[in-house]
């Protein structure tokens, strides 16, 4: 006889159990068969007792554990005050954004004794509270949320009123203690803890997934950011600009050390900002950047072997093309070397270099400089360029001096890095790169070309249009740009995008630390001090110089005695002439 179904196949463990059970049962049978029935009973009683003893012991242990050691989950108490989103800090650990414990105010109307008194006291203590919402909750008959975001002081103030039915629930709130500082780069998040713009959006996963207490660092240096913003905003207000952008990068690592966009906003109250102020012009807006694009065109000409520094270009008369003529704003009306073309910002000369190189070469280099795509950076705001589809000679000439193609300031900064760091294109990043580490990047131009461009940019500050950007001892190099903005019926002479692309220090070995600064003003107005000029040489270049003068020591760039100083008179003469 068997107790299991014949078709039942026991697993090894069950087989062991059933085997043990039947072995015991057979022991009882053997005891009965040998006329020792009392042994059988004793064994059965002992067996049942043992089972009960085991069960009670287990229960006793469980009860003791529950009574003595329950409720000691140490993490639980801290999680309430912990952060749903990790802190954002700058590269030196300075706090940029943090989740802070706040309180939501709730009312249970069934416990409220004096409705009118409660209403009056709460509205007096918290004037910004919505009376309509308070009334709705007081009339609802069940506990409801009334007001959120109370800080501990405000909570204590309400608590001390001793109002029955009023209670508080802890809630996390994202705080940006620096207010408007680096607002566009840091961005902001919604009340649900999801990033909506800037680094908050770009690094959302990292910020939400970071270990408690581990902040997420950004590449910016708060000191650099502050200097950049102060100088940029001062100039923006002085020249009544429509918008302005400032970017500081490390050309070797691609790290963004500072980024500012004007007008700006307070990320603590993004709802109060206009869409215009919320726009990060550094990444989300595209511009025809004007003559700073000549850096790319001349680098292309040199690197492709189309020209060399000493090559002579005919700029003696306007370059006539189908339906128009390319002119220089401060025409020299002479044949120029490539160096002169760059320093006098000659549209004719740059156009001729582009035409000599041809559309295929030009397009290849522009693609390699990253100008034909959105700047590769974590920021989702990074916009694609508006580039011409047909690269005919007319377009080629226009693109060579920064017209016909609209790019973001970030894309320009990334491309400039490739020209100035020894020739490799390194994507920009808002995450800090480990000290001593340098991303490999991809080669775009040779080291010789890079060196030549550094020398040309320095010469442009010493002898050319960028004289007002010089900062004592910091060997600033740069290129001005002043592009007329396209509008109805063609380009508008009175609306400029003025810019200055600067590098410092421009000397020393190619692998030495080097920084790029871009200042751009959208529709600056001339002032008495600038003799009515609103060009890059008069607006953006001095701003770049002041920024560099302030951030140079912060970045560890040593001032050295300069052999050649810019001639102020020559710089003033040329500054108004750049295009």
């Amino acid at each position, binding site marked *: 006889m068997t107790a299991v179904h014949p078709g039942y196949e026991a697993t090894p463990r069950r087989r062991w159990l059933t085997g043990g059970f039947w072995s015991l049962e057979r022991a009882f049978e053997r005891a009965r068969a040998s006329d020792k029935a009392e042994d059988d009973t004793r064994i059965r009683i002992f067996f049942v007792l043992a089972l009960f003893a085991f069960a009670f012991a287990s229960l006793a242990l469980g009860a003791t554990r529950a009574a003595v050691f329950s409720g000691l989950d140490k993490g639980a108490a801290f999680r309430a005050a912990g952060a749903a989103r990790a802190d954002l800090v700058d590269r030196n650990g300075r706090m940029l954004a943090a989740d802070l414990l706040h309180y939501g105010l709730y009312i249970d109307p069934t416990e409220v004794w004096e409705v009118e008194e409660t209403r009056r006291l709460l509205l007096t203590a918290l004037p910004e509270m919505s009376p309509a919402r308070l009334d709705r909750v007081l009339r609802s008959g069940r506990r409801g949320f009334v007001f959120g975001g109370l800080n*501990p002081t405000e909570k204590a103030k309400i608590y001390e009123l001793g109002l029955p039915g009023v209670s508080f629930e802890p809630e996390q709130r994202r*705080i940006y203690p620096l207010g408007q500082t680096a607002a566009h780069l840091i961005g902001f998040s919604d009340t649900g803890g999801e990033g909506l713009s800037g680094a908050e959006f770009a690094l959302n996963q990292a910020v939400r997934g970071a270990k408690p207490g581990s902040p997420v660092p950004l590449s910016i240096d708060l000191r650099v*950011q502050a200097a950049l913003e102060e100088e940029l905003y001062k100039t923006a207000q002085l020249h009544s600009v429509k918008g302005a952008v400032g970017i500081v990068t490390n050309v070797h690592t691609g790290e963004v050390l500072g980024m500012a966009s004007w007008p700006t906003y307070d990320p603590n109250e993004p709802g109060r900002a206009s869409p215009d102020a919320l726009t990060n012009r550094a990444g989300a807006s595209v511009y025809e950047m004007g003559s700073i694009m000549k850096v790319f065109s001349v680098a292309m000409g040199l690197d492709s072997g189309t020209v060399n520094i000493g090559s002579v270009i005919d700029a003696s008369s306007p370059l006539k093309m189908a339906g128009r003529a390319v002119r220089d704003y401060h025409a020299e009306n002479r044949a120029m070397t490539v160096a002169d073309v760059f320093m006098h910002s000659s549209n004719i000369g740059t156009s001729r270099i582009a035409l000599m190189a041809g559309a295929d070469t030009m397009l290849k280099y522009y693609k390699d400089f990253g100008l034909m795509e959105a700047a590769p950076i974590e920021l989702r705001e990074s916009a694609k360029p508006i580039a011409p589809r047909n690269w005919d000679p007319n377009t080629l000439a226009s693109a060579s001096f920064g017209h016909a193609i609209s790019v973001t300031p970030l894309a320009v900064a990334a491309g400039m890095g490739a020209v100035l760091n020894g020739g490799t294109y390194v994507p920009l990043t808002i995450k800090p790169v480990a000290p001593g580490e340098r991303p490999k990047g991809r080669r775009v131009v040779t080291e010789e070309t890079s060196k030549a461009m550094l020398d040309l940019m320095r010469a442009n500050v010493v002898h050319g249009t960028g004289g007002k950007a010089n*900062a004592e001892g910091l060997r600033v190099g740069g290129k001005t740009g002043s592009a007329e903005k396209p509008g109805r019926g063609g380009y508008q002479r009175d609306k400029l995008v003025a810019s200055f692309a600067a590098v410092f220090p421009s000397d020393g070995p190619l692998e030495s630390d080097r920084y790029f600064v871009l200042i751009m003003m959208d529709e600056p107005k001339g002032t008495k001090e600038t003799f009515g000029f609103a060009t890059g040489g008069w607006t953006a270049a001095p701003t770049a110089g002041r920024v560099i*003068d302030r951030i140079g020591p912060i970045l560890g760039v040593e001032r050295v005695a300069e052999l050649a100083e810019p001639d102020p008179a020559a710089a003033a003469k040329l500054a108004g002439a750049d295009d």
Partner: protein
Amino acid sequence: MSLLDRKVRGFKLVDVVALGLLAALVLGVYLAKTMAGRERTEIARIERQIAAERGRIRLLEAEVSHLEQPSRIGQLSQAYLGMAPATAQNEATAEELVAIAEKAAKAKPKAPAAAEPAEAPAAAAPAPAAVVVAPALEAGQ
């Protein structure tokens, strides 16, 4: 007579011992639970205190970050102390400090009056204590 069958005042010894053990266990569990409850309350209180302190520390850190932001310090120092961003002439390396100190030491005996400004700049500006700080975080940020 076996130990299991021995009786004390009519009760089996084994029953008396078992009852005694049970009473001891009940008392032990009661005492342990009471003490544990007290300890647990204390631990919970300390944990709440730690959490509150941590929250307070974070709040203070945010406030420090707000108050120490370079642009704010710059504006205040310009507005109230007449300071300006350092220029190249204001900078010196560690090696140059000795020469600067020697130069200053030489200059001092010749022009003692120069060491004391005729009009202390601080007198014209409000004292640092009067600096109006931006609203602290606790006050609404």
